[in-house]
């Protein structure tokens, strides 16, 4: 990257840097969104083919997973924000999704799983398996045409396990050149086997680790994406549910890992501060889960901010997060803000 010209005035030099940063930022936003929407289209069509019991080439999906890992390593914020976006927005920007539980939830689960895996430094050559398994884990739900979304957490686990009965028949229709499909099937089968997921002795086994990460991401997506419930579940509520009534379904170390890596206020989610301002989470302070970095989007009187105001809650301890907000309109309106 070229440095600003030495002959330019300090203002011009600064302006040059700002323009460059703005241009990079716009490029990053466009790249992330394009990938996400293309992924929705590709996977949607794959699922339509699978639903017709036709064989399908998943190699294009693998290429997109590789790109996603690359973007997440550079700047995860837009993809994390998109993983929170309402289905209606995603459909408007891509196309009508035939099987939301498989396509929409699958892609978002994959984003969370890949984000955790990249932050843990999982080997690059193996991370594609985790991504593909996260994406395809619920493919068996294609068989269940009237998939009910239940409010109770136990019902969610039970519902997801129904996928087990049918997943292999769909996985057999998938072709990915140069990809070890048996490993993929093994991960998905572990995810869907209650006994093995709960087996606390094999945490260090690679496939088991992948399965545990995907399983917890999937349940988190399910909890936080439900729109049929009377009360929408925020990531913080999900943390309380997963640590409370659902704790027996997860290895305790995996719950810790999950919330430490994604935080209980994940990037891209919205919060109301004690100052009555509404903000979007744009950064986390590792090991200080209650004190992320917030970009204020609405003033206390609900006016859109005219200038950029970021609050690092660790440096401003007198301000705190009063509550998480689940609001599809806010998410969509400020999708490009970070």
């Amino acid at each position, binding site marked *: 990257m070229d440095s600003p010209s030495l002959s330019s005035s300090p203002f011009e030099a600064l302006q040059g840097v700002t323009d460059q940063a703005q241009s990079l930022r716009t490029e990053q936003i466009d790249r992330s969104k394009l990938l996400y929407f293309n992924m929705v289209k590709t996977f949607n069509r794959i699922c339509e083919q699978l639903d017709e019991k036709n064989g399908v080439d998943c190699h294009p999906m693998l290429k997109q997973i590789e790109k996603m890992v690359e973007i997440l390593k550079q700047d995860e914020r837009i993809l994390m924000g998109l993983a929170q976006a309402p289905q209606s927005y995603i459909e408007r920007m891509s196309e009508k999704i035939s099987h939301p539980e498989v396509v929409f939830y699958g892609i978002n689960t994959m984003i969370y799983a890949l984000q955790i895996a990249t932050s843990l430094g999982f080997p690059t050559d193996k991370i594609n398996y985790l991504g593909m398994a996260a994406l395809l884990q619920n493919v068996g739900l294609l068989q269940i045409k009237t998939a009910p979304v239940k409010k109770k957490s136990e019902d969610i686990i039970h519902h997801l396990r129904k996928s087990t009965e049918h997943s292999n028949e769909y996985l057999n229709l998938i072709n990915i050149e140069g990809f070890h499909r048996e490993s993929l099937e093994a991960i998905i089968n572990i995810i869907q086997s209650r006994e093995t997921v709960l087996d606390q002795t094999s945490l260090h086994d690679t496939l088991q680790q992948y399965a545990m990460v995907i399983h917890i991401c999937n349940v988190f997506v399910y909890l936080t994406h439900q729109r049929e419930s009377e009360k929408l579940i925020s990531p913080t509520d999900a943390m309380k549910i997963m640590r409370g009534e659902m704790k027996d379904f997860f290895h305790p170390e995996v719950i810790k890992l999950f919330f430490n890596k994604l935080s209980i206020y994940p990037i891209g989610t919205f919060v109301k501060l004690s100052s009555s301002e509404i903000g979007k989470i744009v950064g986390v302070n590792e090991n200080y889960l*209650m*004190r992320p970095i917030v970009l204020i989007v609405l003033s206390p009187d609900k006016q859109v901010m005219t200038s950029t105001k970021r609050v690092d809650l660790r440096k401003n301890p*007198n301000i705190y997060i009063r509550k998480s907000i689940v609001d599809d309109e806010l998410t969509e309106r400020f999708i490009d803000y970070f």
Partner: protein
Amino acid sequence: MQSDKTQVLIIDDSPEIVESLTVFLKQLDCKVFTAKNGEEGLALARIKNLSLILVDIVMPGMGGEEVLAKIKRIFPETPIIMITGYRDEDLAKKCMEIGAYDYITKPFDFEYLKTSVLSTLLCT
């Protein structure tokens, strides 16, 4: 037999605050220890395997800020939540710089406190 409950220490000179926090933490299934001053708190911190410590900032004798610094030197990984009835921005910032996990003012917003406590237990 060793209890597998999460062990939490409250260091505060106000019996009313200690009482309300104890009831609250027990509802979260924690085993609670209490100390009415910094010295007593430090002694307990040395012998108990604690997952979380709540420290009042203003106490007679050793102040909360000093207690925080001393515990952090011995147990840098243990999360410490500072609690205070006074809004002092500089002191709040200083506590966060020393390594406090969170800073909560009285009267407590118990929903926030619950989230904060549960989140610390995810770190330990």
